[in-house]
């Protein structure tokens, strides 16, 4: 049986014929859709390098079977930039040296995007650290990462207020 899936990946509708139900979302993205941003680090849900958003929530793509995602909306790091403009979280990672070798970075950035959207961490570095605890950086860039998340969060909140022209809801 070849399961057929419909998925939205980075805003684009995709029809996918899966020849094997064992394919994880990570292998689907990397090997079949050519989206190699999400990385295969530990392949067992511990490092977070494969973090992507499924229906707006961050998941470890290595622990998610693609076959279960019929109808899902998937966002990877490749889908963040708009035209030539980087996403504010991407800009903040560059500005704050939120990486060294870069291997964990796509996962860190996707996790940060979700954390900011969840709107739970506030301005508290300790809660940002807790909220980013699913993403390990073996270069030890965590200080820069926390600074980047804080900065991106402030910028995005500011932008949202600017756009709405009044105080009010925070950007999702």
């Amino acid at each position, binding site marked *: 049986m070849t399961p057929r899936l419909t998925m939205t990946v980075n805003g684009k509708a995709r029809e996918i014929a899966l020849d094997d139900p064992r394919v994880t979302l990570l292998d689907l993205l990397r090997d079949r859709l050519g989206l190699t941003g999400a990385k295969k680090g530990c392949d067992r849900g511990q490092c*977070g390098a494969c973090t992507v958003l499924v229906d707006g929530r961050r998941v470890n793509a290595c622990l998610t079977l693609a076959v279960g995602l019929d109808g899902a909306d998937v966002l990877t790091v490749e889908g963040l930039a708009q035209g030539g403009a980087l996403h504010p979280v991407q800009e903040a990672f560059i500005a704050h040296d939120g990486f060294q070798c870069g291997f964990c970075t796509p996962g860190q950035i996707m996790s940060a995007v979700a954390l900011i959207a969840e709107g739970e961490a506030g301005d508290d570095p300790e809660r940002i650290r807790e909220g980013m605890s699913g993403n390990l950086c073996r270069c030890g860039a965590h200080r820069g990462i926390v600074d980047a998340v804080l900065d991106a969060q402030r910028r995005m909140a500011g932008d949202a207020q600017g756009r709405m022209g009044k105080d009010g809801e925070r950007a999702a």
Partner: protein
Amino acid sequence: MYAFDYVKPASVADAVKALSAEDAQPISGGQTLIPTLKQRLGQPSALVDLTKIADLVGIEAGSDSVLVKGATTHAAVAAHEGVMQAIPGLAKLAAHIGDPQVRNRGTIGGSVANNDPAACYPAAVLGLGATVLTDRREIAADDYFQGMFTTALEEGEIVTGVRFPIPEKSAYAKFVQPASRFALTGVYAAKLKGGVRVAVTGASESGVFRWAEAEAALASNWSPEAVETLAAPAADGMIGDIHGAPDYRAHLVKVMTKRAVAAA
């Protein structure tokens, strides 16, 4: 992973039927099962996906109990207003399982079916004296857990939910294994209408257990000081690994019990 078929039933009845096939196995969040299959430690003929069954997802907070349906994620329990109001200790426990990515996929049914000796939910289920609901019966927590990775579940039996009685007070205190966030030792202490219960996870080679001496001491005096006067439970039968020796874990049981009572 060895090859398997994938089945996506729309009802519990269909899932039970699919699970009657030889070596068919449920999959929920896959946070435990997928790594196991990747290591080729299992060879199911089919994986039966429980997460698409509408009846298995959701939370019902009543006046004297909270029902968490089987395929409800840890993140959903952590964020549920009704759970936070009725059993804040349970919401906090769910909020500290693993990390956000794991909580977005992992489910209560998968956790209690797996019964990892260091998992968090078993402590709450036993500590609150909850009832495990399945497709065919209701099982009291005291009868459900039967040693590490062992439960009262029969072949092909599905956990459809867990019903937690609302306690007067309760809390979970976990000493984390810093990499995985599993419990090096975790204690759920609860003051219920029917008495006090103290359940310990992460410590014993027999899996989650109740610490009777602490329950007795806390029943007459619900305070960390009441625990202070007790001897730590025997180190015999406690887990020893690179993270901690048996006597260290026995000591942690006492410390975490005090912290749970103080936090409740």
